[in-house]
């Protein structure tokens, strides 16, 4: 089991935004977190990645209870075990594509491996983009690089927050296919949070969140 959540209450400060009695996700599963805006999808992803603290309950990722980790340990844990694909936080504009990916390896505390970087980019058809800067890429290319960055450290869990909300129908489905392919190729569990109903049919499991009152 990669994700084990029990009696969770999470939010910011003392204000709870999301409440979840229980959620278990097995290795390799592709799970969709669905719900209207403000229901706590992003907050739940933040809790799973160790960015946000829990107010109550227990969150275990890949056998590690996050509440037992210090802030620094959570940062390192996230870098090593979790791949993130955010809607807007794509790439660092001052670095080339290869340096963006090398940075992800350095920050995760793993050895920089250009072979892995090139391999990941080749799988996504981006091998020629190694020395380009993010501003020289199309939105679709930038998103594929972000996906490559999420998988190069072979994370146990890939979390994607609204990865398709800015894409048209064709690109939306292509992006989801890509995430599926990459998660499968690297043996990672995939959780996608979205309010985008277009991709619902692709997931074997859908968890719908209700606004916390």
């Amino acid at each position, binding site marked *: 089991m990669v994700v084990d959540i029990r009696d969770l209450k999470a939010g*910011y400060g003392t204000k709870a935004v999301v409440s979840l009695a229980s959620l278990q996700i097995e290795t390799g599963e592709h799970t969709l977190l669905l719900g209207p805006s403000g229901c706590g999808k*992003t907050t739940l992803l*933040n809790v799973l*990645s160790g*960015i*946000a603290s829990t107010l109550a309950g227990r969150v275990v990722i890949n056998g590690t209870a996050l509440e037992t980790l210090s*802030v*620094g340990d959570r*940062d*390192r844990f*996230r*870098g*090593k075990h979790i791949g*993130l694909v*955010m809607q*807007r*936080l794509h790439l*660092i*504009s*001052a*670095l080339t594509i290869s*340096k963006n990916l090398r*940075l*992800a390896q*350095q*920050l*995760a*505390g793993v050895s920089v491996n250009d072979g892995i970087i090139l391999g990941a980019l080749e799988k996504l058809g981006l091998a020629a983009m190694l020395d380009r800067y993010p501003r020289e890429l199309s939105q679709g290319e930038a998103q594929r690089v972000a996906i490559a*960055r999420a998988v190069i450290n072979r994370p146990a869990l890939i979390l994607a927050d609204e990865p398709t909300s800015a894409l048209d129908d064709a690109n939306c489905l292509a992006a989801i296919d890509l995430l599926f392919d990459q998660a499968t190729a690297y043996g990672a569990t995939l959780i996608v949070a979205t309010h985008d109903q277009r991709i619902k049919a692709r997931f074997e499991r859908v968890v719908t969140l209700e606004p916390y009152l």
Partner: protein
Amino acid sequence: MKTLSTSLSLALAYLREKPLATILNILLLGLGVGTIIALALTLAQLEEGMDRDAAGIDLVIGAKGSPLQLILSTVFHIDIPTGNVPVSDAAAVIASPMVKQAIPLALGDSYKTFRIVGTNAAYVQLYGASVLSGRMWNAPQEAVIGAEVARVTGLVAGMTFTGSHGLTEGGSGHADHPYTVVGVLKPAGSVIDRVILTAIESVWQVHGHADAANSVSAVAEKLAKDHDHDHRQADKDEGKEVTAYLIQYATPLAAASFPRRVNAGSTLQAAAPALEVARLFNLLGVGIAALKVFALVMMLCAALGIFVGLTNALNERRADLALLRLLGASPAMVFLTVLTQGIALGVAGVILGLLIGHAGTEWIGATLEKTHRIALTGFTLIREEFWIAAGAFGLALLAGVFPAWRAYRSAVPVLLSRT
């Protein structure tokens, strides 16, 4: 170590991304540091050089006028003299028991802007100089040249030259009274390197006082050995003039009364090099202080520029900071990445400032050497530079600390919510 290298490469990438702002910040800091360093180097060398040139000279006696001008012209040879004084007037003054040694100087001519100094052997001894090639002069119209004179003019023993009036090139000459170089002095690191020495009788001969036998040199040299001078000598010196006497006191107590006595009781003027040099630096002090304040303002502007630049960059790069945290960077690493930008700008600014300061001093030195024969080099280091560099670096560091602290304190959810 890995964190440091990652922070450094990321910080440098951020600085490269905004080349104009980066270059301007470095340039501003460099100009401020460079100006202060050039000032410090120039002042330190001028003070050191003047101290060296005036060492062993307690007092200068010459014609009435500006005491500073008297010192600048007779000790440092960078100004025109206040005039000449009759040897007969000075004889009684320098015969005082308070005077241990009086070195006569007769000035007026120069060769290629190097002053021709009519004097005696005691002048060479005063600066501890010795002959590198050739010999000392022992007759009128023989000249011994300083090392710098030899280097610049190419004169060597055996060559002849003629002096011209004044200190600048192009003055009317004395073609009928050529000098013969008989010796070149070893470099002494003082004003003697930059003068042409000859017997005082040469100067009289060139300027129409042919009776070299009645030499004031003889009077002065005799005085050094024995104060029991002959009053009849004054008659023989009738009509002879000198520009000044460099005086060494027989006792330190002389400083209290002797100058006052000379200034009050004769047609001569007495000026102490130490006092006049101090007065000169006091006069220069206002301008120097203004330049220092200007340079300091430039450095503060640079620090402010770094602060504003980093703070703006911080606001623009909230998404990047959040991303760094999401990828596993600790708050400390984010702090270091922002601070490293300030450090990099500080280091680059200080290095540029050192280069500007030393190159500027070298340039000032080259200019002053041509116009005023003042030795100044940029190829030297002084302790003050370390403090200037440390201060500038500290300012840049300080300018980086606040933005870095803000980045450190920013919680990822807050960063995410604002991107």
